[in-house]
Structures are given as structure tokens and as C-alpha cells.
């Protein structure tokens, strides 16, 4: 043994089942006597409703129950979804009734739930329920909804503003008064949905004799689901066990709490049967949170040497119909400003606005890709205005190495001053330029233009606050079989957490990874947890697993020292046993040590051992948020006849501190970049004026495909974070955050001869042609 595990390209322990088709996702779970749920959802964006007939549905053979608002149990604490993330700054908090009572606010809002012996029958029965819709005027466009005289998106609102927030530091007034030049920039950002390949799903299994509910949910946050369902039902948290089985991708929207989770619990309890609901793809488009629109208006002040001194602006943010994820998406939009750039004076306000569309919540990166995009578009716009090369412009404005720890002046949402702990932003910029042969490409671009080919290169630099606390605990236990069980609150949707946890433990205890079993995503196996959000899990479980394993090692050496009658410095832990150095005959296995501390051996614990078992639990926390960072370059070719964009190459330099598993980190980065490319070029959730979603299948809503994606070249630097003992920083979203900016900057760069300004994404071929035509018209 003695093999280095941390930092090694260890193959994933998760893969064996998944490549054989032996994973267990929500819809794969079959329980005896199970029945199936389907939902009748609103076909109108805004209407008063009354349910006029459920008889026909109820009497369809195979139907077991029909639930509406009126027939929900009166024992519920509330028939309206409880607030997941309450905040005093929320002016008007709109949350959906678990099933709509008298008003619906978006197409797809749940009105009734049918339980039947098959999903087919449940869906058939939904068709038989009669709903009388009295249409109200829907408000679909976020700018329209933001107007003071707008129609209301819910009839109980005063206006459509959910909340107004801001980020402010420095002296913006004076900075603008003193700047040498300024520019105004307006752009629309549109990010789509999560589109995990597995839709959402919930399976409730109420056990009457135990008074317990086992709730399986395809969720990123089982502890949140437990908390919310317990609050909604008014029952103890300990009577609910939430299990996230294999989850087929999350990307943010599966981190929320949804009415279906409580409704399935109610149905299972009432029918005394397991009840399963598997969201279909159309429902995913109309009931799972999305991200969608933000309208940005910015004013930038700068000096003629390129130094940006002030930013002022406003963001109009589309909240959708309800605020079921609080202000987290809004907050993560403003918080990362001004990114890796040293801009001392900034004031940006944001209004979160209700519209009659699906609710929004974070999608991979949350608001960070939006903030990063804003900054990288600002940099490019000023560079163009001053005729400074965009790379040089970044070099001028980036935070320098001597500035760390750097406080831009903004505040984290926990109230502390944002602190960039470490990094090498200018070094990464130089490195990515080198990788992409930036200067060479500029020459190539000039020659290509002479031949009627339009090449473009785009840069983006970013920071990401990661590893959000307070903790993600890990318990490490050696059992009497010599196996090691790690249980944790961390929950995975494909990130490979079980592998990295195993690596950390294997290195500490010098045992083979095959001896480690990771139990996760199950509130019955570990008491506290948060879940996979905000690029936090690797950092939090990494340091907790490391600490817990180190404690176990200490405990093992101490006990072995007593049993072998040797001092601890004469002992070493290797290959599953504590051994006397230089004496291969004297050792005691971890299994035997575990037995000595187990209840199987009568008597009392050895002197100095206060806790039973060869185990330890740790809830390590980071001192402040470790900041990952990176520099990206995209190269594109734009076809000015068709408006088509070909991505030629994509380069990433990323810094997530000390890397636990480079194979997994590269997978996160590459997948994240492709998600960002999807946002930049393809993904668009379209509504018509009546609030009907027009893109509810993968023929209309485009996701990135293998045939269009470039080779993505990834390199790393490792500046260990001083914020935690292992030097870790998060890596889950750093691919996505800069990618949109790099792509749009590249596309705009290709269109330089047309003096085009890309004012929105996704950039479609039609939009490219409009940009080109606009110039031609002006030139004529």
C-alpha cells in the first residue's frame, strides 16, 4: 500500500453499476402494492379556476383517489407551499397552493392529483376532470411586468415586484464624476432549464405500523425535503426518511422543494400504499424551475488607459410565477460582481419580478454565469471603445497576485465581506493565451477575413465563490469485518463524491478503496446535511472525511499501542493493520481493533476511550469561502451567409486549489463548458404572448449535441486555498460560469467587420443574420 490517492486519477467507484444498467433511479424502484400518480396541470397562464367535475375521473376503473385543493387533509399546517428560504427583504412572497385553489399563475401549475393502478390510467383520469377557466390577463414579458402600471400576475399582488436588492461599494458618484470616459451597455441574458436527463420523481411509502414515511425523491437536497415535508405535514422530522437514490443529474432545479413531494406523502399516508410519481418531459418543461431572463442595463466609467473605475446599473430579473426558491438566484447574480476585476466603485440594483411563467431558481452556476457574462462583456466593450486588445484590457484590470487576500467590497449573503482567498488571475490569462496561441490566431483571423472567412476569439475570466458552509459532515467507521463505512450528508447526482470521499479515507487509513463503502443521500444514514449546490460538496466533504479518517487513525494507533504494549511512535498504520515498525510479526488489524471497541466485547472501554467503536465524525468548516477562478478562450467561425456558428476550439485554465481527482474535475469542467455553450447558442424557453410555453420538447428546445461540440482543452493551476486545511476549492460550476461570455465575445469578435454588438443570448443563426444585415443596411 502507501499508494497516493488524493490527487490521483482514480476510476469512479460509482461506475460499475451504472455501466451495467444496474443503477437504481427513482422510476426504477418498484414496491409491492404500489400505485401511480399523475397531475392535471393548468392549460392557461393566468385564470380563475373552479373544478366542476371529478366524478368521471373517480369512477374510471383503476382510479384510487383524486385530490384537489378542497380534499387535501385539514391536518396540514398549510395547504400552500411553505417558504423554503424566507428573507425579510422579500416584499411580496408568492408561493403556490399545493394544488391550485381558485387561481392559476402559469401553464403547468398543478390543479389535481390522480392516483391509479397504472400511470396510463392516472393520466387518462386527469383528462376527465372538468375545470372551468375564467381567463385573466397574463403578463409574460419581464420588462412589461416590471412597469408600475402593469397588469398583475397574481390578483392578490400590489405590483409584480417580489423584492429589490442591491450591491454597493466605493463612491460611485465621485468615480463617475472623475472618470475620463463612459459607456452604456444593455443586454438580455436568457438561461434555460436544467434538463437533467432524468426528470424529477417522488415515491412515498407510508408505513402505518411504524408511523414512518420513507420518501424517495430525485433530489439534490434530501435534508431540505425532509425539513419542508415535515413542516408542511406537521410531523416530527424523525418520522420522515428521505432517500435520494441514483439521481440522473440535477444542475440546480432539483435542489428545491416542490409541492409534489408533500402531495405524494399525503397520498401514500391516506391510501396506505406506496405511491410513485415520475415527471414526464413535458411536465419538466412546465413545472420544474428554470432560470430564463435577466435584462441588464449598465453604465461603465473608465480611464483612457483602460482602467475601469466605476459601474452603475440595474438588473430586471424574471422570477416566474412564484418565489419558491427565495432570492438565492437574485442574490448570486449580484454577489459575484465585479468578478476577478479590480473595480473599486460599484452600485447595481436588481428587481425580482413575477411573470406568468414557470418559476425560476438556480441552474448550474446560479446567477454567477450572468454576473461573469456582464463583466466580460463590459471588458470587451470598453476594450473595443478604446481600441485596446481584449487580453491586454483584462491584464490591466485583473486583481494581481500581490492583492490576495482581496476584498472587492461586496458582501456575501451571510453578511461577511467577500474575500478572494488566493489565485493567479493574470498567470492564468497568460497561460490560456499561450495554449490557444492567441497572438497566432489574431494573424490567422486577419488572413481569413481577407478571404471572406470570419473567425473570432473570445476571452473570459471569472471567479467563483465555492465551498459554502457551514459543513457537510462525514462519519468514518471501521467495522468488525475490516471494512470502512463512510456516511455523509452529501448527496450526488453524478459528481463522483463517493469516489473522492473514498480516496481521502483510503489515503489516511492506507487501505484499498474497495474496502470502503459510502452511504449518502439518505437522511436515515446520517443526521444532518445540506446537499449538492453551489460547488460546495468536494470542499466540505473533503475536509470532513480527511478529519474523520485522521481521528480514526489516531484512535487506532492509541488502542494498538495499549494492546501491543508499544509506544505510538513505534507503530504505523499500513494496509489495514497497525504494525510495529520493522517487525512484520507484530501487528493488529483494523478489524480486530474495531472489535475491541465494539459492544461485542464485554466489559469496559479501554482507558482513555470515551466513545464506542472505531469511528469518528467530523463537521469541518471552511474559514471563509474558497474562490476558484479561471480563464477561458473560445474560437469560432461565423458563416455570414447562413448565420451558422462553428466552434473551432475551446480552452480552459482553471484553479480549484488542490485537486482531489483530476479525472473528475476535468469531467466537471468540460461538462460545465458545454452547458454554457448551450446557453450561449441553443437553449431558449419561448412563451407566446398568452403565456403558452412554445418549446416543450427537444425538437423545439435545443440542447448541445456531440456533433456540434468542440474539443475542450483543459489545464489547471493549483493555488491551495488558505481557507481550509486541505487547500480545496469547488469545481462543479466553474466550467459553465465563464463559457457564455467567452462564446459571445468570440462571436462578436468574428463580426468585428460588421461593427456588430451582440445584445442577447442565445445567439441564433437568425440573430446573426440580423446583425449582419443591420450593418449592410446602415452602410447602404
Amino acid at each position, binding site marked *: 500500500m502507501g499508494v497516493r490517492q488524493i490527487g490521483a486519477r482514480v476510476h469512479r467507484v460509482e461506475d460499475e453499476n451504472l455501466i451495467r444498467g444496474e443503477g437504481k433511479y427513482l422510476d*426504477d424502484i418498484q414496491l409491492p402494492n404500489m400505485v401511480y400518480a399523475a397531475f392535471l396541470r393548468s392549460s392557461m397562464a393566468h385564470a380563475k379556476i373552479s373544478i366542476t367535475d371529478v366524478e368521471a375521473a373517480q369512477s374510471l376503473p383503476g382510479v384510487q383517489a383524486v385530490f384537489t385543493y378542497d380534499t387535501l387533509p385539514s391536518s396540514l399546517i398549510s395547504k400552500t407551499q411553505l417558504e423554503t428560504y424566507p428573507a425579510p427583504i422579500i416584499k411580496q412572497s408568492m408561493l403556490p397552493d399545493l394544488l391550485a385553489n381558485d387561481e392559476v399563475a402559469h401553464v403547468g401549475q398543478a390543479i389535481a392529483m390522480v392516483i391509479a393502478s397504472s400511470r396510463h390510467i392516472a393520466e387518462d383520469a386527469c383528462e376527465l376532470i372538468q375545470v372551468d377557466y375564467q381567463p385573466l390577463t397574463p403578463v409574460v414579458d419581464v420588462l412589461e411586468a416590471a412597469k408600475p402600471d402593469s397588469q398583475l400576475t397574481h390578483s392578490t399582488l400590489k405590483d409584480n415586484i417580489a423584492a429589490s436588492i442591491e450591491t454597493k461599494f466605493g463612491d460611485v458618484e465621485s468615480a463617475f464624476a472623475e472618470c475620463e470616459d463612459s459607456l452604456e451597455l444593455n443586454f438580455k441574458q436568457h438561461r434555460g432549464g436544467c434538463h437533467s436527463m432524468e426528470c424529477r420523481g417522488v415515491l412515498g411509502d407510508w408505513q402505518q405500523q411504524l408511523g414512518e414515511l420513507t420518501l424517495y425523491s430525485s433530489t439534490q437536497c434530501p435534508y431540505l425535503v425532509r425539513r419542508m415535508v415535515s413542516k408542511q405535514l406537521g410531523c416530527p422530522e424523525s418520522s420522515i426518511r428521505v432517500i435520494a437514490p441514483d439521481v440522473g443529474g440535477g444542475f440546480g432545479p432539483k435542489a428545491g422543494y416542490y409541492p409534489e413531494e408533500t402531495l405524494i406523502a399525503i397520498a401514500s399516508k391516506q391510501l396506505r400504499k406506496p405511491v410513485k410519481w415520475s415527471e414526464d418531459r413535458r411536465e419538466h418543461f412546465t413545472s420544474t424551475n428554470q432560470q430564463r431572463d435577466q435584462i441588464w442595463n449598465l453604465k461603465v466609467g473608465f480611464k483612457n488607459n483602460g482602467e475601469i473605475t466605476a459601474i452603475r446599473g440595474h438588473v430586471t430579473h424574471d422570477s416566474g410565477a412564484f418565489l419558491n426558491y427565495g432570492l438565492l438566484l437574485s442574490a448570486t447574480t449580484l454577489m459575484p460582481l465585479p468578478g476577478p476585476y479590480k473595480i473599486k466603485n460599484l452600485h447595481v440594483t436588481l428587481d425580482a419580478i413575477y411573470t406568468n411563467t414557470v418559476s425560476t431558481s438556480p441552474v448550474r452556476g446560479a446567477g454567477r454565469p450572468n454576473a461573469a457574462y456582464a463583466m466580460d462583456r463590459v471588458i470587451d466593450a470598453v476594450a473595443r471603445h478604446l481600441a485596446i486588445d481584449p487580453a491586454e484590457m483584462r491584464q490591466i484590470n485583473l486583481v494581481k497576485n500581490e492583492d490576495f487576500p482581496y476584498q472587492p467590497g461586496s458582501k456575501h449573503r451571510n453578511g461577511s465581506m467577500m474575500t478572494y482567498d488566493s489565485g493567479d488571475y493574470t498567470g492564468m490569462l497568460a497561460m490560456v493565451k499561450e495554449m490557444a496561441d492567441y497572438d497566432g490566431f489574431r494573424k490567422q483571423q486577419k488572413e481569413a477575413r481577407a478571404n471572406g472567412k470570419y473567425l473570432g476569439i473570445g476571452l473570459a475570466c471569472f471567479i467563483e465563490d465555492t465551498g459554502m458552509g457551514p459543513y457537510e459532515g462525514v462519519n468514518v467507521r471501521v467495522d468488525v469485518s475490516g471494512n470502512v463505512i463512510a456516511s455523509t450528508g452529501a448527496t450526488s447526482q453524478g459528481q463522483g463524491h463517493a469516489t473522492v470521499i473514498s480516496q481521502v479515507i483510503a489515503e489516511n487509513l492506507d487501505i484499498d478503496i474497495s474496502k470502503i463503502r459510502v452511504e449518502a443521500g439518505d437522511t436515515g444514514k446520517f443526521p444532518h446535511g445540506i446537499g449538492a449546490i453551489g460547488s460546495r460538496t468536494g470542499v466540505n466533504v473533503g475536509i470532513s472525511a480527511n478529519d474523520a479518517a485522521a481521528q480514526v487513525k489516531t484512535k487506532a494507533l492509541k488502542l494498538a499501542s495499549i494492546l501491543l504494549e508499544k509506544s505510538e511512535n513505534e507503530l504505523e498504520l499500513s494496509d489495514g493493520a497497525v504494525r510495529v515498525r520493522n517487525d512484520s510479526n507484530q501487528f493488529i488489524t483494523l478489524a480486530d481493533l474495531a472489535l475491541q471497541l465494539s459492544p461485542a466485547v464485554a466489559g469496559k472501554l479501554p482507558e482513555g476511550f470515551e466513545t464506542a467503536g472505531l469511528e469518528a465524525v467530523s463537521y469541518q468548516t471552511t474559514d471563509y469561502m474558497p474562490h476558484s477562478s479561471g480563464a477561458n478562450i473560445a474560437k469560432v467561425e461565423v458563416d455570414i451567409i447562413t448565420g451558422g456558428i462553428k466552434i473551432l476550439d475551446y480552452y480552459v485554465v482553471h484553479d480549484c486549489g488542490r485537486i482531489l481527482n483530476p479525472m473528475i474535475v476535468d469531467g466537471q469542467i468540460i461538462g460545465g463548458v458545454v452547458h454554457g455553450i448551450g446557453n450561449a447558442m441553443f437553449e431558449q424557453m419561448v412563451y407566446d404572448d398568452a403565456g403558452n410555453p412554445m418549446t416543450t420538447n427537444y425538437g423545439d428546445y435545443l440542447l448541445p449535441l456531440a456533433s456540434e461540440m468542440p474539443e475542450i482543452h483543459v489545464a489547471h493551476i493549483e493555488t491551495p486555498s488558505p481557507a481550509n486545511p486541505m487547500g480545496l476549492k469547488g469545481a462543479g460550476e466553474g466550467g459553465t460560469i465563464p463559457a457564455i461570455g467567452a462564446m459571445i465575445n468570440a462571436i462578436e469578435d468574428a463580426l468585428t467587420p460588421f461593427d456588430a454588438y451582440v445584445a442577447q443570448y442565445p445567439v441564433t443563426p437568425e440573430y446573426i443574420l440580423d446583425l449582419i444585415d443591420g450593418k449592410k443596411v446602415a452602410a447602404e
Partner: protein
Amino acid sequence: MQEQDVQMHVNGKPVSGKVEARTHLGDFLRQAVGLTGTHLGCEHGVCGACTVIVDGDAVRSCLMLAVQADNCDVTTIEGIAEENGSLHPLQEAFRNNHALQCGFCTAGMITSLYAFLSENPNRSDEEIREAISGNICRCTGYQGIISAAKEAAAKMAKDNRN
């Protein structure tokens, strides 16, 4: 609703059952046969997660009715590994190249590539990308899948020669 008799060979074993005419092959395999390795991602024929092999061709099992597969030979992800349980070169290569994260699209990716590379393992990167352009993966960005397909193709070509 009236039920129809169907019979087919799934992963080499005879299977029969009664299904409603509207039951698609994916539901039949998952619910009646109990092979849940085939996943349903969109149920409208675009995402490719539900791909299985029917008489040698890659087929979206959400677009084929179970009754249409009557008397056919069906291979699902559970039937890809060797009979002795050892992994198929594609499965091995998927693990080696980190070609999966959440694993939900993986069965469809492997069955699509299995049909494509079994026909001819000598394929360019571009051909492989085109071959899986009907399979959506949200996690990996496809790069690991392309590397895995190339590694497996080389092994499959070698096995063909032997």
C-alpha cells in the same frame, strides 16, 4: 383497454406477456420484464436514453410499441456484458475515460455505440460524434464518451481480427 400477446427474445432469453397496444417497448422492458437499465429521458424520441438494439439496429424504445417488437431479438444494456459477467469493451472504456457522470444516458450511449461500432469499428471522431448526435448527455460534454468510443473501437477491431 384490450390487451395483446407479445413474445420476443430479450438478451437471449424468451419473454412473453400481455400488453395494451399503446404500451411502448421501453415501458414493457422496464415494467413487464423488469429490466430497468433502459431509461426513459424524453419519451418523444429525441434524447436517445432509451435506445435498445432490436434485430441488430439501435432503436428508441419509447417510439416503438411493444407489439411492434413481437418476435424480435432485443438487446438491452443488461445484455451487453459478456456471458461470464466480464464487461464489454465499451463498458470498460466508459469507466476508463470518465464517459459517464450521473449515468442516466449511459445505457443509450452504450447501446447506440454498440450497434454503430459492431457494424464497423473503424470510425473517425467525426463519425462517432455524428453517431451519438441522437443521444443527449447533460453531464459530460461528450468528450469522455468520444474517447471511450475510440478506445472500445480499437479493442473491438482487434477482437474482430482474432
